[in-house]
């Protein structure tokens, strides 16, 4: 069972995996009403992030991403969890404030590249608040 390097926001979460091919800016690139990617330049434009364990190496762009992510968590259109290889404070803030305001938790964890690859190739993933990840690699 892979372990995470750092738990940014702790929590349990499970969902189908969506591996982003490129970083996404939640502001300008994502619509909190629907949870979909709207960045026309993003290779996965149109994909829905809601309820999925989303892997993204690093965040990108605007400071406003914190608010958009918090709003998505409030609406229930946010990812189930975010798995990243680098800390992104702007994303962390969105998740921290949603938890402080609404007691809604979207776990955010940092993993190494090997774990990232394993999660990205999995069908679904379960994050445990203590900092480990269970992967399902085939559809049963």
């Amino acid at each position, binding site marked *: *069972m*892979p*372990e*995470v*390097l*750092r738990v*940014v926001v702790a929590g349990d979460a499970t969902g189908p995996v969506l591996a982003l091919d490129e*970083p996404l*800016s939640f*502001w*300008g*690139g994502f619509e*909190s009403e629907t949870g979909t990617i*709207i*960045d*026309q*330049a993003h290779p996965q434009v149109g994909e829905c992030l809601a309820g999925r364990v989303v892997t993204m190496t*690093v*965040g*990108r*762009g*605007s*400071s*406003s*991403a*914190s*608010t*958009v992510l*918090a*709003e998505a*968590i*409030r*609406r229930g259109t946010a990812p189930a969890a975010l798995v990243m290889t*680098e*800390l*992104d*404070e*702007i*994303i*962390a*803030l*969105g998740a*921290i*404030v*949603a938890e*402080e*305001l*609404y007691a809604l938790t979207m776990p955010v964890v*940092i*993993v*190494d590249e*090997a*774990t990232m690859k394993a999660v990205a190739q999995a069908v679904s993933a379960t994050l445990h608040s203590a900092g*480990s990840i269970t992967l399902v690699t085939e559809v049963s």
Partner: protein
Amino acid sequence: MASAPRAPGYGDPMPLALEPHDQAMLSGDDGPAVMLAMRVIVRLAETMGAEALLDISGAHIDSCLYHGEAGLDFAQRLAGQGARVQVPATLNVSSLDLLHPELYRGDAHTRDQALALMAAYEEMGCRTTWTCAPYQLDDRPGFGDHIAWAESNAIVFANSVLGARTHRYGDFVDICCAITGRAPAAGLHLDENRQGEVAFDVSAIPGRLLSLDVAYPVIGHHLGRVAGSRLPVIVGLPEATSEDRLKAIGSAAASSGTVGMFHAVGSTPEAPTLDDAVGGRSVPVESISMEDLRNARDRLSTSSSNTLGAVSLGTPHYSVAELGRLVELLDGRRVDPGVHAYTSTGRDVAMEIGLRGWDSILAAAGVQIVTDTCTYITPILGDFEGVAMTDSAKWAYYAPGNMGIDVVFGSLEDCVESAVAGEVRRDHTVWSDA
């Protein structure tokens, strides 16, 4: 359970040591709003591996731009519980142009929510500057000042051009820092994180192109994509590159990437030499080619149509010098009646150009000045056929997704000639190899 290897920087950090007053704020001694603010700062500081908090001398607040209930809930919680800023705090753009309210074409509910958000920040004692370019205000931070700034282009300008020190703060924590006067002693506040990690050499770019404004947003756009999370140093730019050009590099790089600071050798204050910029270490050097820049330029346009519907300038908010250049290029001519032309700027700069009489010149030329907000974050652009043109890499990057429109990037000269002609006209010769 097998333990994973620890990556550099992600080991077990020293615990965060709070000073007595930090601890008191966290315990609620200064009321529930300050307690909430301090909780957010402490959680962020722990995430960043900070060992302490530090005093800040100012803040720039991005959270005043409306993106939904969550932002309003947070601001109204803080303001309603009596929070007041402890350091001077400027406000970023909002969703509304208070000086030209008739430009707003969105729905009344969103407008009312946006106004409520703006009112909450005003109530907390923030200055109603409503600009994404607070570095163009008179009392901007100085070299070495610790500040808490949000708004990606302002962050990169403060760190790179002013030599002030702010981490890449997002919404929410900006106001938390202003309310407590404290920020995590981590990230770009610390010397060791301000050294260049990779150098980009632009010596292969013809001096003729580097003498033009249009080179700089394109260099920045490329830089953001290739630098990743490494702090970039640009080598080979002309000495003392202007603030407006450095602003164009930074805002573009902060949109296409995560750049929170860059050095430009010979132009930015912490980079008199490459050796100074990298702290004497050896770093990889990557060359930027004309091919790289042409590709970056091409990625900034989503259409090859010549049908022009709108021109939007002033992202980030134009400086007095940039507006002066616009007036000069218009040279008394009028924008074609079929083209909507806008330029965004801060209300302080708008007042200054009014004193110079440029506001009436721009109005007579058919250019609408937009203050307090920006044309790609709120419905201002009128209905039009065809593409929107801009000289801003940031606007070109975000407008297609935000507004659902096609964008063509060009120089300010291209934008003005196109606006006057009523169709897209671009000078491609400046992008040739020699």
